[in-house]
């Protein structure tokens, strides 16, 4: 299978400290990259470099063999990112939030109600986000992943403030995504139990 996401000689420096140097990765469809490492080892930086939000000191991130800075919109159509911040507005309802996510120019596979249903938030659709609990907010942020059809999911600690049941639910969702030919890059302090999936581990502390 052809390689979709690749990094070539990626080096990241933050505050004069080299976080990682000459990192070469490649990910094919259906693969998941689990980034591990101590606090401050550069996990978040790596993820943000992959999204193009941060710039590496040197090296390139390649999508289908081309640097993402040159691919531009065609890459962003394929990327969904869930970072430390939920990226949802407190003063909007769940549905209004998701509608805005869809407006960002990525392909749309499913209906908003279905997406809410998938993350068990259907009945909160018209509630303001401010009234939701931290876990529910996180679930809404994760619903962003499915309202548009992006192949590459990049997630920074997606399981924070989620309970066991939700975690299992999302892992199932991830497996489904991988089976459909998607890619996942994520960091997590929690144990991942996805035995049927092709999981590549990268430890930045070593």
């Amino acid at each position, binding site marked *: 299978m052809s390689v979709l996401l690749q990094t070539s000689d990626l080096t990241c420096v*933050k*505050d*004069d400290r080299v976080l990682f140097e000459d990192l070469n990765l490649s990910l094919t469809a259906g693969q998941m990259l689990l980034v591990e490492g101590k606090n401050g080892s550069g996990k978040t930086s790596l993820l943000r470099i992959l999204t193009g939000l941060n*710039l590496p000191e040197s090296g390139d991130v390649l999508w289908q063999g081309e640097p993402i800075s040159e691919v531009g919109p065609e890459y962003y159509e394929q990327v969904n990112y869930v970072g430390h911040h939920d990226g949802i507005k407190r003063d909007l309802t769940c549905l209004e939030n998701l509608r805005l996510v869809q407006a960002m120019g990525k392909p749309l596979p499913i209906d908003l109600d279905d997406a809410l249903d998938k993350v068990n938030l259907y009945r909160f659709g018209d509630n303001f986000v401010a009234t939701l609990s931290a876990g529910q907010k996180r679930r809404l942020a994760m619903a962003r992943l499915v309202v548009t059809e992006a192949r590459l999911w990049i997630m920074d600690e997606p399981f924070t403030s989620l309970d066991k049941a939700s975690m299992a639910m999302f892992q199932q969702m991830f497996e489904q995504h991988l089976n459909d030919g998607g890619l996942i890059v994520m960091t997590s302090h929690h144990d991942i139990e996805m035995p049927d999936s092709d999981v590549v581990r990268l430890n930045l502390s070593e």
Partner: protein
Amino acid sequence: MFKWFVKWFHRFGSPPYFYRLAGLWLPWLTGLFTILVVAGLYGGLVLAPTDYQQGESYRIIFVHVPAAWMSMFIYMVMASCGIIILVWRMKLAEVVLSCAAPIGASFTFLALVTGSLWGKPMWGTYWVWDARLTSELILLFLYLGIMGLYGAIDDKRVAGRAVAILAIVGMVNIPIIHYSVEWWNSLHQGPTVTKFDKPSIVWSMLWPLLTMALAFKVYFVISLFQRVRAELLHRERNTRWVEELVKS
């Protein structure tokens, strides 16, 4: 030819190369500056004839006008660095941009103060809202803004890119600001201030002026190199070339 240029550009942009080169050039530049400034001052203060309208006070021109020219010139240098930073992400350009700002601010300040010192005998007050003084004052604010922004951002790589954007935005705005102020001035004041505009300037006054302008440019390069060397040493303190340099 182009290939050669690109190669040279990259080599010139590498910190250790530039550091060494600047160190080699500094004594020569200092010598050149000394010659130019002595010649310029002698020509301006001694040889140039007394102005029949302004008497001796016009001799301020030999520092005022070159300083005002420098204030524009340095901003242009900074904006060019800004473009280089955004297009090629060259680290040296970030350092040059940030180091040029305080020098530019000094020259702008100098142009303002000498301008008002000239204004006192000419207009009878230290400050008039003359078009040139006003746009020079705004230019000073632009410089201070760049210095302030650079100082406020902790991550110097990010700060470098931020001031690059700001310098370019400023560059687009400077002509607009300048012409607005000029137009505003002509609206509110008569053409009383055109005393500065000499229709033609005699050669014996012109050559010291140009020599001083050149001396200031050389001085800018000296001061810039000095600053850039200090900053490079600080920024690259963890790299091998600095280690080798310090150990030797």
